[in-house]
């Protein structure tokens, strides 16, 4: 028993700084660590996007520190921008960040099931970020294969371009490490949800946030192993001379590549997208959970169709594994499978539509309180619809023919992923900050931040649809070179579409500058914010029954007992318009 007790003891509130804040096993500290990692990454990613936007409209400008950016630097910037945003921001903050912090609390547990694994998973993620960012500083610079790193470009090494040397190798290694970290995280999330729910917390009483973290973790568990395998194979092609993805007879930069033969570039695409499509749902599902939670809370109504929401989440999760081929309509894969993937993809619109309807249904008849968190949740719905609908164009292989790899796709994924999912993070931050830090964020600044961001992102990303329709390819470093020839006369592309690009760039500068408001609000809020009560939003779930920030073991050693569903707002015949989950029927005041 001695050992048993000692391990249990190891989890008592630690006292040293290192154990408390650095190598902490407390899910709340780890959640904040993930959050800060994402915050750092998102500002890095935004900085890269500023450089990209500058280069796109003024390719010849000399920047301080950077000088004049070259084409290969542009491609490296966009690769790192996409990679950092997708992996280090959208896979960490919504799931590992907020999920870590609030999943155990919302189901009434004292911590994650395996706190040490939890800590390991954060530090592994950290290492992976360091490895990836290191790619900027090696000879040849960061990789330029795009975030999708299609071989042979990503497999041939330096011969295929400057960043394809050490930089690309670090990228692959960093991604493989990230996979390992995410797998550990997924194990923890699922086990915690399955086995650590408190008394009375049946599956159908879990908040939708918990449901979304749970389903997301399942997606992660099934998807990241595949990416890991793909990364291992790609790495071997790069460093060990194998030929998984490299076919024979290639001649690059006048060199005959004779040491490789027979590999298949499409194999990587299948493996990558088998992971990649579930990955984009990994990015958005937690945001959906947060939006549902916040919309219900601030419209003072139960979520409309709770069960339907759960089924829709699961449906999206399941279908998410059956549609990866929609990224490969023009890749040379069998046109018949394109047909099947297309139909599956169109049907993913159905659970998404159910969710949208139910969000509107939740607001319908409500008493909406326009907190900043609520504004971002409403913005989420608007942007999710806008970004999702463009997916329906891309999902039809024939319509995808002209649109694939143009700015239309860039518009689609920035709206639904780069913005909707980010709005989920914002909403969550404004909503839970009082619990995480015991202080309020400044609502006034928050609202300014909302308006600038909401208007800003639409200004950045809506016009991109038109660029794409007009045939503007993505991943083009320099617009000057795009000669748009039509009907025999050279109508200069630069003249026709450059103003649109310029508008987008200015919108981006303003929007990105507005994010500093958020940063200042956040930092100021931690120390100077207004003190928050225990339940400032009059919400129903368990995190609002404990002080903020919560004590080390969340519930002070008491086992919370759950008596009701998560969204009992404005129940007729009851005095107050919200009934927390832990109140027994006798404890509820009648009107």
């Amino acid at each position, binding site marked *: 028993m001695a050992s048993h007790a000692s391990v249990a003891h190891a*989890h008592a509130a630690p006292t040293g700084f290192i154990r408390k804040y650095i190598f902490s096993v407390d899910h709340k500290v780890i959640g904040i660590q993930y959050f800060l990692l994402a915050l750092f990454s998102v500002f890095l990613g935004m900085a890269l996007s500023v450089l990209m936007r500058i280069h796109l409209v003024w390719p010849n400008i000399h920047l301080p520190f950077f000088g004049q950016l070259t084409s290969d630097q542009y491609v490296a910037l966009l690769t790192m921008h996409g990679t950092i945003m997708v992996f280090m921001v959208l896979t960490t903050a919504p799931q590992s960040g907020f999920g870590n912090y609030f999943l155990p609390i919302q189901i009434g547990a004292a911590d994650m099931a*395996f706190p040490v694994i939890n800590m390991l998973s954060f530090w592994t993620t950290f290492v992976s970020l360091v490895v990836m960012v290191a790619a900027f500083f090696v000879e040849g610079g960061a990789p330029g294969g795009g975030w999708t790193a299609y071989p042979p470009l990503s497999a041939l090494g330096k011969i295929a371009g400057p960043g394809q040397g050490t930089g690309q190798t670090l990228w692959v290694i960093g991604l493989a490490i990230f996979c390992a970290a995410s797998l550990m995280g997924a*194990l923890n999330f699922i*086990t915690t949800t399955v086995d650590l729910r408190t008394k009375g917390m049946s599956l159908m009483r879990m908040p939708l946030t918990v449901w979304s973290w749970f389903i997301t973790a399942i997606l992660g568990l099934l998807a990241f192993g595949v990416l890991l395998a*793909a990364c291992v194979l790609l790495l071997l092609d790069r460093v060990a001379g194998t030929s998984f993805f490299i076919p024979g007879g290639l001649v690059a930069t006048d060199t005959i590549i004779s040491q490789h*033969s*027979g590999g298949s570039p499409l194999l990587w695409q299948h493996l990558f997208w*088998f992971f990649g499509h579930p990955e984009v749902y990994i990015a958005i599902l937690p945001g959906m959970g947060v939006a549902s939670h916040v919309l219900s809370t601030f419209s003072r109504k139960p979520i409309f169709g709770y069960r339907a929401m759960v089924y829709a989440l699961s449906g999206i999760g399941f279908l998410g594994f059956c549609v990866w081929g929609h990224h490969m309509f023009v890749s040379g894969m069998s046109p018949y499978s394109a047909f099947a993937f297309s139909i599956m993809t169109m049907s993913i619109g159905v659970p998404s539509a159910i969710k949208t309807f139910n969000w509107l249904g939740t607001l319908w008849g409500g008493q909406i309180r326009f907190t900043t968190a609520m504004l971002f949740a409403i913005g989420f719905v608007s942007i999710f619809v806008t970004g999702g609908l463009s997916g329906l164009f891309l999902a039809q292989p024939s319509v995808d023919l002209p649109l694939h790899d143009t700015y239309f796709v860039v518009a689609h994924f920035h709206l639904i992923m780069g913005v909707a999912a980010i709005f989920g993070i914002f909403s969550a931050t404004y909503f839970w900050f009082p619990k995480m830090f015991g202080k309020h964020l400044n609502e006034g600044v928050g609202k300014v931040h909302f308006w600038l961001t909401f208007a800003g992102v639409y200004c950045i990303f809506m016009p991109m649809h038109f660029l794409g329709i007009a045939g503007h390819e993505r991943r083009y470093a320099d617009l000057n070179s795009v000669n748009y020839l039509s009907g025999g006369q050279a109508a200069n592309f630069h003249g026709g579409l450059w103003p649109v690009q310029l508008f987008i760039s200015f919108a981006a500068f303003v929007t990105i500058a507005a994010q500093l408001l958020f940063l200042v609000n956040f930092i100021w809020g931690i120390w100077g914010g207004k003190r928050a009560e225990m339940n400032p939003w009059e919400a129903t779930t368990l995190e609002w029954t404990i002080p903020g920030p919560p004590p080390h*073991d969340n519930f002070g050693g008491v*086992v919370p007992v759950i008596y009701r569903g998560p969204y009992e707002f404005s129940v007729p015949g009851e005095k107050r318009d919200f009934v927390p989950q832990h109140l027994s029927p006798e404890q509820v005041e009648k009107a």
Partner: protein
Amino acid sequence: MPGTAAEQLELQAHPGQGGGFPPSGDSGGGGDDRLSPIPRRAYMTVITLALGAILMFFLALTSSYIVRRGLGTDWKNLALPRILWVNTVVLLASSATLELARKALSRGQREAFRNFWLLTTGLGMVFVGGQLIAWRQLHAAGVFLSTNPSSSFFYVFTAAHGLHVLGGVIALLYVAFRSWQK
């Protein structure tokens, strides 16, 4: 006081999570109102899930193998070293001894448990060693990672599997070490 056989088993079956033990609520006293510790089934759950993740990893490799083999004309079947058969037998034997260890423990025969447990650990090591010998034989025969797609896959699979088994051996050693201490 030391837990029942079953409890021991849970402990031993999943020792990797040693530090991840249940938060037993507060740090001090431990009255009746403490949060219930992590339920045993959580260890079952996490092992099942981990198997699922590992399965996906190997499935990805396997489907790559199938796709790659169907491609190109460069595929040459590998002449596998004989010792692989021995290794396979060793691996199967180790599952048998592990099962015997489990039975012994549940019957409370600690001595028998320990022996079988150590035997399992030993067999695991023998297996990994055997695989290394197989690698050396292939090397000697001039079959390297990049020689042919079939050899590439062979090394990738055996390396991944080797790491997997090595992880198991470390876990076995950890438990052996702990049960020795008691």
